[in-house]
């Protein structure tokens, strides 16, 4: 069998391309080396939908960022993922830097960002009482937003799957070969697949696949960003995404609310060699804490519940590499997707899928259903709605994760729905069990039991995030000689 398109990588970009491609009649396969969608860069980033004032005017980054930002709210309703247009502020910390703030404003206007304006200290202080005493002004972007990056990615992938896209996990692409008579052979750890088109959405590995096929060569550097996530008790410390204007105080980190009512602080930016290097470092975490204080006062970093690091796929040209490779019909890059990649994903998905459709002559899929109903968030329901739900399905009355108040019903839904969770991390990203202040201390054995029951596996077969991450290594006493 020959696929119309094989998409390498089930991150937000690959999942977006898959989802929009299903608007056409096509046999689509998404291959992912991890055990779930959203396991790479898409899971560890700032969770921001940038307004789009930052990128260089005329760049693909600017174009897709602004488009993506404009698409995101409607998409959040269509696919039912958490999105909050909280607005963003770029804070200027010295009079001397005001011309830079003005330049950023003008850049944003040129990029087509709506409703931008520069606000003075007084208005800023009214919006954000905890802003630094050094703040003199800010660029206010009301279209700036926050999103759940897991839900965004999962909902795109799930919707693609519901519309017929096939997903293969734990499948690592080794090599792509362009066939003499057109089309490609994608060689993977799980066998070879034939396809008419390839989408290279391989994140920090996208240069490898690009360079197997196309010229000019590209080069991606994993750029590590470390973050701190603060407890719900810190929520409200800021109510907008606070960036700091790079200036005489250096380049800061952002301090932002999340859609799940935490506060996120970060990232650092360090170029590294190891594309698997998602470890946090003492220096990085210390830097985040220190820099958080530049634009915002008294960030309660003592309330940290977890820290993490993500890798941005930084291409040497600091620009998205998007589209069909010259001289290699059917090979489509989505490479160099660093910030604002999350914000741009819907736009990239739409435009790349259109390019593929045009190249392959795909016809419209009249059965496409773009709408998805997400997992019910029981904690957000009214008492009567919740009781109705529990009457229908008693599992919604059983709390499993006490910190985030997640019921068994939600976990069952996360496992049972298309592209359902098969791991602890999969459950965590879908319904937030284990995402709270105790960080899965109490609920992980219980979630493991539910996974084992639902997937008809032994408890010892349940993993954190795929075959190489077992939680249990044997039964008691079995190691005694």
């Amino acid at each position: 069998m020959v696929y119309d398109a094989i998409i390498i990588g089930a991150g937000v970009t690959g999942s977006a391309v898959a989802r929009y491609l299903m608007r056409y009649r096509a046999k689509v396969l998404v291959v992912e080396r991890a055990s779930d969608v959203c396991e790479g860069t898409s899971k560890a980033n700032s969770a921001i939908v940038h307004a789009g004032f930052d990128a260089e005017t005329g760049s693909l980054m600017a174009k897709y960022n602004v488009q993506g930002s404009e698409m995101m709210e409607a998409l959040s309703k269509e696919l039912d993922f958490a999105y909050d247009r909280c607005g963003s502020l770029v804070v200027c910390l010295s009079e001397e830097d005001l011309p830079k703030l003005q330049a950023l404003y003008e850049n944003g206007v040129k990029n087509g960002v709506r409703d931008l304006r520069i606000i003075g200290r007084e208005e800023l202080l009214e919006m954000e009482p905890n802003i630094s005493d050094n703040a003199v002004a800010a660029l206010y972007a009301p279209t700036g937003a926050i999103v759940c990056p897991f839900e965004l990615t999962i909902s795109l992938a799930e919707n693609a799957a519901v519309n017929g896209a096939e997903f293969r996990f734990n499948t690592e692409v080794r090599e792509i070969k362009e066939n003499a008579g057109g089309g490609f052979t994608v060689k993977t750890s799980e066998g070879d697949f034939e396809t008419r088109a390839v989408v290279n959405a391989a994140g920090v590995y996208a240069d490898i696949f690009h360079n197997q096929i196309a010229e000019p060569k590209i080069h991606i550097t994993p750029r590590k960003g470390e973050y701190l996530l603060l407890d719900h008790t810190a929520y409200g410390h800021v109510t907008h995404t606070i960036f700091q204007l790079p200036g005489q105080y250096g380049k800061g980190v952002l301090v932002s609310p999340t859609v799940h009512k935490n506060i996120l602080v970060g990232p650092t930016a360090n170029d590294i060699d190891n594309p698997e290097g998602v470890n946090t470092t003492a220096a990085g975490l210390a830097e985040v804490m220190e820099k958080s204080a530049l634009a915002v006062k008294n960030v309660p970093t003592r309330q940290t519940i977890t820290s993490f690091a993500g890798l941005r796929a930084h291409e040497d040209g600091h620009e998205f590499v998007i589209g069909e490779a010259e001289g290699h019909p059917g090979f489509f890059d989505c490479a160099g997707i660093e910030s604002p990649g999350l914000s741009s994903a819907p736009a990239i998905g739409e435009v790349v899928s259109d390019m593929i459709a045009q190249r392959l002559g795909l016809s419209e899929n009249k059965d496409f259903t773009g709408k998805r109903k997400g997992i019910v968030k029981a904690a957000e329901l009214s008492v009567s709605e919740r009781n109705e739900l529990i009457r229908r399905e008693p599992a919604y009355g059983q709390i499993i994760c006490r910190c985030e108040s997640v019921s068994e019903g939600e976990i069952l839904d996360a496992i049972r729905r298309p592209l359902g969770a098969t791991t602890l991390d999969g459950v965590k990203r879908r319904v937030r069990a284990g995402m709270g202040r105790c960080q899965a201390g109490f609920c992980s054995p219980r979630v493991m039991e539910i996974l084992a029951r639902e997937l008809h596996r032994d408890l010892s077969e349940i993993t954190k995030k795929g075959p190489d991450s077992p939680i249990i290594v044997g039964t008691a006493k079995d190691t005694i000689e």
Partner: protein
Amino acid sequence: MEKVNIVIVGGGPAGLAAAAAAYDAGERSILILERDNMLGGILNQCIHNGFGLHTFKEELTGPEYARRFEEQVEERGIACKLNTMVMDISPEKVVTAMNRTDGMFEIEAKAIVLAMGCRERSRGALNIPGYRPAGIYSAGTAQRLVNIEGYMPGREVVILGSGDIGLIMARRMTLEGAKVKVVAELMPYSGGLKRNIVQCLDDFGIPLKLSHTVVDIEGKDRVTGVTIAEVDSHNKPIPGTEEHYSCDTLLLSCGLLPENELSRQAGVQLSPVTNGPVVNESLETSIPGVFAAGNVLHVHDLVDYVSEEAASAGRNAAAYVRGELAEDRSGEIPLEFAGGPRYTVPAAIDPEKMNDTLTVRFRVGAVMKNRFVDLYLDDERVLHRRRQVMAPGEMEELVLKRTMFEKHGPVQKITIRVEEA
């Protein structure tokens, strides 16, 4: 709305003892709400012995100890709802809870005993750098996997933190065939009981490295090793002291945190030192009629003292319901301390409301040798107790008698002072 005189939030050792004592004080309208599918709380997974030496003069296992109190609750016919999560407590003492069969429901209580226990500090809260693979567990999670589920979470183990659960798990994992390579403790002293260090580490030849911490965790999918380093007097790792341990498991036993999210929502005043409610001599929180006991109030070393404290809270709740505990709090005198204690429970005493005896519990902030613990009423020293050694890992207590107050007469100032001998 259903009405109950005393709602007890939590069916662990504290909740059970509070319920039985409230019953014995004459109260009949009592309801225990427990989130787990059985009573007994964390004791169910503590299958080692050493419980009950004070209470029953016997060495019991955790489940046996819990069972004794469950029997007391059963014999008295006290109502319990299992698998029931308390979602909210209002300042007016309306308890909102949820389970599979009743859905979400409200109960109007006259008195509430908070007995929710505590949780373990997580890796994230400790800000340990490194990867985030499988193989990192809080000691209590590992204890549940081994003792309840019968599974081994790892074979080669490094433990960070020398809290009691970590020490117990060092022994447990060793007995189950794992190799525990080292226990690293950030502080220059252990956070656990001396007897546990002897019985769980020394007896098995497991090294305890004080003033050491984990500075790196390796392994993207599953732990493959950790690096520990010595720390200076500011708890900062000293470069050049790094030691690498290959292992597949890192257990964390770095402190317990009272679970007071419900208390906070209700508006109960919390202590920044204990993270538990601020209580008076009746173990009553800042909200009249809301009492607290056990690890939700402050973290204990011995369950015997949890039971004792909780029984007192239960009796006081019953007295409150009967109208025998005056709502007037103007007679409370703050309990002051100097020379060592980090806090006291209770934090204030109304001598008029005191029972015949009152046990004051506290912890010191550093290891102290050859001291006296003294109680002063105004400037009169009424108690003078010798302590050979006091350590942060061992809770101290001082028993105050009502007669001391009666003898002294009206008092302005109550102070516990730790003094060099």
